[in-house]
């Protein structure tokens, strides 16, 4: 169960951090 939970949390964390990174790239481009 811990492994399943870890996988789900990993996917969510990846999505959040990737979207933050994409916004940062967009900010850099706009400057």
């Amino acid at each position, binding site marked *: *169960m811990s*492994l*399943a*939970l870890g*996988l*789900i*949390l990993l996917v*969510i*964390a990846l999505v*959040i*951090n990737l*979207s*933050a990174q994409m*916004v*940062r790239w*967009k*900010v850099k481009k*706009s*400057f």
Partner: protein
Amino acid sequence: MDYLITAWVEAWQLILRADRQILEIAWVSLRLAFWSALVASCLAIPMGISVGQQDFKYKKLVLAVLQTLLALPTVVIGLLVYTLISRRGPAGHFGLLFSPMGVVIGQAILAFPIICTMVVNVFISLDKRAFQTAVHLGANRRQTMLILLRETRLGILAAVLTGFGRVFGEVGIAMMLGGEYQGLYQDSNHRYCPGDQ
């Protein structure tokens, strides 16, 4: 090796079956991270704007302190908040220890310097002409601030998302201040005391 294969197979089965308990735990993590990022943003964005936008005597010192706080170990935050909200601590009578609110406080402290520093950097790197043009065109204080916020909205969004991602991935504070997570999502009024079980 068999143990590992069995664990992976079981994990995927639980995920594909959309096991209720796992989804609930993931939902609690998301919810707590959301509230932590929201609380931290409410404090860090105004402070970041005022520090980034204004020039004052101790600006460099404030920036140095904020950047140092970025490296604050999560265990230290957990211990500090633990001593504050534990039963004998100054905020002990609120009963926040081992409750979702305690976790939110700890994680908000973690996210605060991250969001604040990023907002400060966004405002420092903002073209000064945006502010000057707004003032010269007769915009009042509120209108000028709205223009600057519009110019920096993506940077602020990036700061909030980074803070959100950081607190979502944080486990030390949640364990120290939230106790065992079964009590956290099954009954938020349940107070788990170490040594009870």
